[in-house]
Structures are given as structure tokens and as C-alpha cells.
């Protein structure tokens, strides 16, 4: 009946789901129809996490930011807050942070010009203190950094130590870290990393520690984004994200040291990618909320609405930002942000229009904030919650994504679970298949990217040269590292490091010892050396 494909072309979503020309009431699966009339803020939450949506809680404007020396990053964060950002993210230099190396590590020395290009270098609590200067810790929503699993305990303990020193009560401190398996073991496979089993332990330790001391802190954030931007499609991103959540919940269940409800609440702040397929991406956010409710009820018997309502942070797809004709990316950022807003996310970061060239310039950063402000203030989009709800198309797509995502979840379970699918490289293969397919479609003309595959001529090229960063990040970091070693109370530092090593070996929660280590000015690289001697390296399943 309505399967007219136009001039013979097959119309699919970005993840390959077949699309009809139009949707009618009978297309919405019977089992899904009952959810449609449930208002937002009520189980199963697919129509929204909160009853009054953006009217009472506009999404948080939350941009990744960081480069250079800690003071450079601090300046950029304060600039973004002045521009109207409503939370802030501290990014640590990836060369040193991800690997837990100090700047005098041979692998960093060999790439010294890279240092500070992707975040500020923070090797001790002193650096973190500089980066956090005058930031509204108690009233805003801070992201402490520590996206990579082995780095997270250091980044979190550093942030909390500085907050404590400033007299902020940790029991009231809002914020989050990330400690993301998708980034660490799938998207950006670093040169050296603790094995997944030990990474799981770290994340469970963080969850336990927050449960006791930082109840308002979101301890871990599972970032499907990092899977999706590596190649996983929409339903694979969903399925894998919940398979990851199951690993955390099972670990907590096994430990029996905190309530499973609290653990579920701790896992219930997640991160998805919004890419260019507008309706599929909006439907994905809706599907995610529905799946979380189903997972908790069916697998763990958890129905508490304060736990079962998934809160979503969303980032627009960096990989879809083009090098060619970069101003076109302002349009792409807007469309992807719209998908996220239509999907009802709680928090959003928009990639810079210069994403394919460099980390964001100040102008690109401001534009990422402006895109969100224009959507919030000029389009009336915040007036009505779940504006796509009840659309035959969107409800059908939501239901189909849920179904496909559970199938993918089951496939991961058949592989032995999420960790096993990372250890074996099975998940990497799924991402790589899609990467190759993407390129094939671009070559065949099935996938058009304006300015890249088509319409390559640019009448008056706008000069976007990429952000240059600062050139003294490495030298200053090296000087500060020497200064910390020279001026800290050495006996205290070595005792704290020794205690951390014992805890790493004995299996106790590492966070109290990590807090002591940061307070004693133990440096990042010393902590990394402990990890490397205690845990060894993850056997990377892919050749990078």
C-alpha cells in the first residue's frame, strides 16, 4: 500500500531500518500502543523523564572544553559560562591523562608538541586547583573529566579534593565524571590501559564511594556516543549501552555493598550521540528511556520512578562535521541538536563547526552555545514535552529500535557480555563493518555529504584555519611537575602512594586511598606506574 519508494530508491534510516512512504495507525506495533498515552514523567518514561519537560528543566548547555595550561582551560570554561553555558566540563590532556603518564614519560616526550592540544595538563592536585579557579562548584554542574577508565579515579579525587579545600560539602556537591568503557576500550583505544576486569572494579569502587560520600554526584556515565562515533548504529548503540549497564549492576550485586536501586540510579545518567538522521536519533532517545525502564523492571525488579527515569546527556556527532566547507557544520550542529531536543534529553553538547580541523576555537565554542540558546529561546520548542509523541512514524520507529536493540543486547550476552565483547574485539568488528559500509555508500552515491561527496565547489571559501592552542603547555607542565616533586612533603606522598598500591593489590575500594594520594600531592604518572605494575596492560584486540 504505502511502500512507494519513489524513483526506485530504497529509503532506510541511517541504521538501515526500512522506511515506508507514510505511517498509519496500524503500523504502530500493538505492544507499543499502550505506552503512547502515558504522560511524560510516568513509567515507562518513553515520553519524557520529567512531567513538565523543558518548561521547568531546560536542557543543560554542557560543552566539552579544554586545552593548554590549566589556566588556559579555566579561562575558556569561564568564557563559556559567561556565554550562557549552564554546566562545565574539565578536559584533561589526553596524552598524559588517558595513559596516566607524567610529561617526562618517554612516550610523552616524543610527542611533546601534542601535549595540551586536547585538554589541560593536570598532573597533580595543584594543576587541578588552577583549572578550577573561581568555578561555581556548589551551584553549577561540573564534569571533573576522567573520560578514560584508568584516569577517572585521579580526575575525580582531584576535583573532590579541591572542592573540599574550598569548603564545599561533598555530600551536597553536584556533578559527574565519565569513566567510560566505550571510549576506553572501543572508540579511542589507548596505547596502555588497565584490563577491562580491573576497569569494572574501578567503576564499581567509584559508585560505592559516591553512594557513601557524594549522593548528588553521578559517578559514571556510560557513553554510547563513543560507540556510535566509532561506527555502531543507533540500535547497536542502545543495545551495547544497556549491556554495559548490566555489567556494572551485576558487579554491584555480586559485591552486595550498596543497594541495587542506588546502583541503578548511579548508572541512569547516560550519554548518547545525536547524528544526522533526525527522526531516528530523536526516536533513539525515546527508545532508550523505554529500554531502561524495561531492563530495570524485568531483570532487577526495580520500578522506583526516581530510578527508572533515564536521564540523557547528548553530544552531536563529531564524525559528521566536515573538513570541507566547515561553516556548513553550523547547520549540521543545529539539526543534530534539534534531534536531541525532540528526543527529550536533559543535557547537550554541540560539536564545534571546526571539529574536523582542531579542538574548538573560541568562536566555534560560542557558536555551539548559541545554537542551543536559539533553539531554546526562539523556537518555542520547550513549550511542549515530547512533541513527536503519537506520531505514527516516530512511535513505530521507536518501537522498532527497541526491538532491534534488545536483539543486539542478546547478541552481546551470547558473546559472554559486554566486557567479553570488548576483550575479543567482537564489538570492534561490528563498528568496523559499519565504517566500511559508510565509505562504500559514499562512493556509490547512496550517502551524500554536502561539500564532501557533492557540491564541492565553494564560491567564497571562509577561512577557518583550526584552533592553534598554546605553545607553552609542555614546558610549563614540566616545570610544575619538578616543582611539585621539589616542594611537596615527600614522606607523606610516598606513604600515600604505598597505601594506594596496597589497596590496588588487596582489592579494597581504591577511592579513599586515591583521595589521600591526591591530598598528599602524588602525581598522575606515579599512580599510573602503580597501575601498570599491579594490573598490567589490557590485551588490545585490534591493531591500531
Amino acid at each position, binding site marked *: 500500500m504505502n511502500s512507494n519508494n519513489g524513483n526506485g530508491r530504497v529509503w532506510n534510516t541511517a541504521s538501515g531500518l526500512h522506511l515506508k512512504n507514510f505511517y498509519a495507525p496500524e503500523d504502530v506495533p500493538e505492544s507499543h500502543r499502550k505506552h503512547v498515552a502515558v504522560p511524560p514523567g510516568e513509567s515507562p518514561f518513553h515520553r519524557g523523564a520529567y512531567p513538565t519537560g523543558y518548561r521547568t528543566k531546560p536542557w543543560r548547555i554542557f560543552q566539552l572544553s579544554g586545552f593548554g595550561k590549566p589556566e588556559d582551560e579555566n579561562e575558556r570554561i569561564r568564557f563559556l559560562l559567561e556565554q550562557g553555558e549552564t554546566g562545565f566540563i574539565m578536559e584533561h590532556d589526553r*596524552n598524559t591523562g588517558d595513559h596516566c603518564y607524567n610529561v617526562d614519560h618517554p612516550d610523552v616526550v616524543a610527542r611533546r608538541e601534542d601535549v595540551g592540544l586536547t585538554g589541560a595538563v593536570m598532573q597533580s592536585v595543584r594543576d587541578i586547583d588552577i583549572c578550577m579557579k573561581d568555578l561555581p562548584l556548589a551551584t553549577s554542574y561540573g564534569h571533573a573529566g576522567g573520560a578514560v577508565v584508568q584516569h577517572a579515579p585521579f580526575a575525580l579525587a582531584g576535583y573532590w579534593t579541591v572542592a573540599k579545600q574550598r569548603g564545599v560539602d561533598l555530600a551536597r556537591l553536584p556533578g559527574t565524571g565519565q569513566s567510560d568503557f566505550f571510549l576506553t576500550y572501543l572508540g579511542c583505544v589507548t596505547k596502555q590501559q588497565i584490563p577491562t576486569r580491573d576497569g569494572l572494579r574501578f567503576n564499581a569502587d567509584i559508585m560505592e564511594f559516591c553512594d557513601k560520600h557524594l549522593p548528588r554526584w553521578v559517578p559514571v556515565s556510560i557513553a554510547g556516543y563513543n560507540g556510535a562515533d566509532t*561506527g555502531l548504529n543507533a540500535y547497536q548503540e542502545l543495545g551495547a549501552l544497556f549491556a554495559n549497564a548490566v555489567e556494572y549492576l551485576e558487579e554491584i550485586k555480586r559485591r552486595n555493598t550498596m543497594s541495587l536501586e542506588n546502583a541503578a540510579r548511579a548508572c541512569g545518567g547516560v550519554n548518547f550521540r545525536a547524528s544526522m538522521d533526525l527522526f531516528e536519533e530523536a526516536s533513539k532517545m525515546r527508545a532508550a528511556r523505554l529500554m531502561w525502564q524495561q531492563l530495570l523492571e524485568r531483570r532487577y525488579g526495580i520500578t522506583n520512578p526516581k530510578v527508572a527515569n533515564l536521564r540523557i546527556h547528548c553530544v552531536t556527532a563529531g564524525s559528521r562535521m566536515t573538513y570541507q566547507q566547515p561553516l556548513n557544520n553550523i547547520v549540521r550542529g543545529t539539526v543534530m541538536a534539534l534531534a536531541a531536543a525532540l528526543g527529550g534529553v536533559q543535557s547537550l553538547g554541540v560539536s564545534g563547526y571546526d571539529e574536523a580541523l582542531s579542538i574548538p576555537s573560541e568562536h566555534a565554542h560560542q557558536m555551539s552555545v548559541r545554537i542551543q540558546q536559539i533553539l531554546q529561546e526562539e523556537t518555542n520548542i520547550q513549550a511542549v514535552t515530547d512533541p513527536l509523541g503519537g506520531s505514527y512514524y516516530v512511535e513505530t520507529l521507536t518501537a522498532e529500535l527497541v526491538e532491534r536493540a534488545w536483539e543486539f543486547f542478546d547478541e552481546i550476552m551470547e558473546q559472554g557480555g559486554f566486557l567479553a565483547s570488548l576483550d575479543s574485539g567482537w564489538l570492534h568488528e561490528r*563498528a568496523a563493518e559499519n565504517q566500511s559500509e559508510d565509505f562504500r555508500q559514499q562512493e556509490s552515491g547512496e550517502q551524500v555529504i554536502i561539500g564532501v561527496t557533492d557540491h564541492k565547489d565553494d564560491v567564497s571559501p571562509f577561512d577557518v584555519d583550526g584552533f592553534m592552542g598554546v605553545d607553552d603547555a609542555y614546558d610549563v607542565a614540566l616545570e610544575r611537575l619538578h616543582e611539585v616533586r621539589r616542594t611537596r612533603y615527600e614522606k607523606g606522598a610516598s606513604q600515600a602512594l604505598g597505601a594506594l598500591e596496597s589497596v590496588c593489590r588487596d582489592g579494597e575500594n581504591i577511592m579513599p586511598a586515591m583521595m589521600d594520594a591526591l591530598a598528599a600531592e602524588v602525581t598522575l604518572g606515579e599512580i599510573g606506574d602503580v597501575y601498570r605494575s599491579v594490573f598490567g596492560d589490557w590485551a588490545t584486540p585490534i591493531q591500531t
Partner: protein
Amino acid sequence: MSTAGKRILMAKTGLDGHWRGPTVVAKALRDAGFEVIMIGMARPEEVMQASIDEDVDLVGLNIGGHVDVAVRAIGMVRESRPEVPIFVGGVVPPHAKRKLEGLGVEVYPPGSQLPDIVAAAMRLTGAA
């Protein structure tokens, strides 16, 4: 001429761990008949050493960070294997692209299409 027996070394100069680009390129090169040796994240001296040990016909560098790290790797390869051509891909902003092209290195920034990269590899190795 053909790609049979032509060897390409691929390395990442940075520590950033983004494997998507180089992996897709390596697959396309292998599909075209090249033998691709991937050494992953490598320091400039490791790139140079591998270009000798592996007796390659072409070196491909993926840049995720500062251009000067790549420039150092290029300099070291050129010193020991001046006859081996080098091409570069990854996040290479225009100012870095100009610098590399000034060194006689071909640059393939994001958005480059695989057939163009494969054609460049064939030309640079004398396979086409």
C-alpha cells in the same frame, strides 16, 4: 605494474587512540593488493626504524595531534630512507596541511575518499 609485493607502513604519530581512520584506509589498501604493516601509535624513531626493518615502499602517517610531531617523524624517515615517499591523513588543519605539503608530503584530510587514497598509494609506489 601492480600492487603485488608493495609494502606500506602505517603508523599513528599521536597517543589519541582514534583507530577508525587508519583502519578503514588500511583495509582499502589491502583490498587493492598492498601489503600493509600497521604499527599503531609509534614515536618518530619507531616509525623510522620500522620503515627500515619492514623495507617498505611507502609510509602512511595518521596525525591526531600537532603537526610538528609528524614533521619530526618525516625528517627521521627521510634521513634513513630518503627514497621512500610519505603520505599523511587525519585531523590536519589547513596551516598544518600547507606545512606538510611544503615538505613534499601528500595530505589526505577528513572527507578524503578511499579511491583517491588508494590511487595515491599506487602512484607513489610506482604500482600505477
